[in-house]
């Protein structure tokens, strides 16, 4: 393993914590141009993940789980486009992190948002959606590697928490980037406006995760064994 990969792997968890802190500090100190600066920061935060994925020289077949899961997530987001809030994306990304590790999970989440926004519209939100969804996959990988996420209901509860976290990060970014002189009322108003959406998304994730929580890891394990990945 080369040095860049090692360095970026150490930086990754730091960045995951640092980006939200920078965003909140920017809002707290009421510094100008929050929308632009936070978007640039999110782009910067994505680089160590993509660089380490790029430099780790994976074999072609090791890229395939990410490709397949990401395209399934994008197709799922497209199929469920008419239904508001309920999407299988978070469930699939959680499964990606759980079965293939934290880096794969991050890349699955980030790429799923990047590619699906080609259909749903790229915007200033793209880097933040990529970051938050990547974080979901990364956390699933970390929690899964400690052998925590085995029982059906613990996976489902984890998925629900991740859906709420994803919504919370994006709502917070809306406040930081687009609300000037934010006070308690406007902050509350934004969270309340997003609440129904986030709760529906969490419930949808639970509904998708409960039936696949056992079958998918088993299936992927079988494939991994069969193709010696």
């Amino acid at each position: 393993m080369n040095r860049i990969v090692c360095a970026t792997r150490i930086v990754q968890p730091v960045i995951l914590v640092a980006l939200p802190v920078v965003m909140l500090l920017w809002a707290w100190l009421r510094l100008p141009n929050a929308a632009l600066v936070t978007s640039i920061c999110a782009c910067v935060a994505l680089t160590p993940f993509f660089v380490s994925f790029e430099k780790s020289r994976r074999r072609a077949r090791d890229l395939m789980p990410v490709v397949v899961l990401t395209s399934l997530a994008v197709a799922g987001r497209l199929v469920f486009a008419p239904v508001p809030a309920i999407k299988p994306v978070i469930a699939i990304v959680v499964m990606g992190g759980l079965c293939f590790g934290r880096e794969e999970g991050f890349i699955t989440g980030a790429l799923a948002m990047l590619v699906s926004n080609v259909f749903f519209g790229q915007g200033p939100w793209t880097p933040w959606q990529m970051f938050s969804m990547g974080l979901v996959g990364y956390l699933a990988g970390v929690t899964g590697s400690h052998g925590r996420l085995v029982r059906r209901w613990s996976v489902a509860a984890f998925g629900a928490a991740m859906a709420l976290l994803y919504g919370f990060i994006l709502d917070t970014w809306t406040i930081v980037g687009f609300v000037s002189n934010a006070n308690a009322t406007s902050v509350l108003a934004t969270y309340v406006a997003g609440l129904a959406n986030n709760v529906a998304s969490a419930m949808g994730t639970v509904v998708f995760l409960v039936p696949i929580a056992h079958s998918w890891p088993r299936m992927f394990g079988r494939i991994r064994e069969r193709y010696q990945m």
Partner: protein
Amino acid sequence: MAKGLFATYHPAVCMLFFLAAIGFGFSTQHPVYVALSCVMSGAFLVYLRGWRPFLRTVGTCVPLVVFVGLLNSLFNAAGATVIWRWGPFCVCVEGLCYGVAMGGMLAAVLLWFACYNEVMTEDKFTYLFGRRLPTVSLMVSMISRWVPRMVIRGRSVHNSQEALIGGYDQSRRGTLRRGVRMATVLAGLGMEDSIQTADSMSARGYGSTTRTSYVLFRWHVREHVVLGLLVALAVANAMLLFADAGAFAFYPLVSSVEPSWGYATYALMLGTPFWVELERVRRPWA
């Protein structure tokens, strides 16, 4: 291929233009700059796609823009001219102005992104970043190929299951169970298929050396000229726009709008897709 000469320019020039338009658009709420950005992005989108898609894009932006505008004007007590107060709500003229400016800024950026989607197609993106990030750009193009394939596969899985099993229970539970089974089948099938694709790629030498790329875009004299002008305009804007934006304040009272050269340079910079058409004067066939 998007309409207009601008889309035929080297992707690096297009990318720089959009970075400048979106970056500057994001960094000020000065009303004149916001209005210029809105008008230019709207005009470019109409030019690229026509009126009807333009109106559709505007329609999808409206809820977000209105939400942000209201959020900024309804809950903000920093202005001096209060017109209405009720409990937590305090509406002042300055807050309303700020809400309109912030909504306009967001609308302009969204319209620029819509233009970006039209001009910077995926091949140009891959061309720009493909050599720097070979693995990731390969994955992005594979994913774009796999998404429609997943949908088509899903349909054929659905058809064969319908033929085998016959009458479905149409309850919500049954639909969910079918959907989950479909996703599982697609994931397993896709995984096995893609591993074979990967093996075949490796057998043909994928990853054995650095990737080369078929160069579709040439760097002509016009790219030099437009790039130079763009950079000059961007530098001029960086000075003029930030000076004007710094001098302008919404609170406690909305300052008056002073005339500035910055408006001209900003309009010229954002008008790049239009003035590059002057090339047709010399080369009408272009």
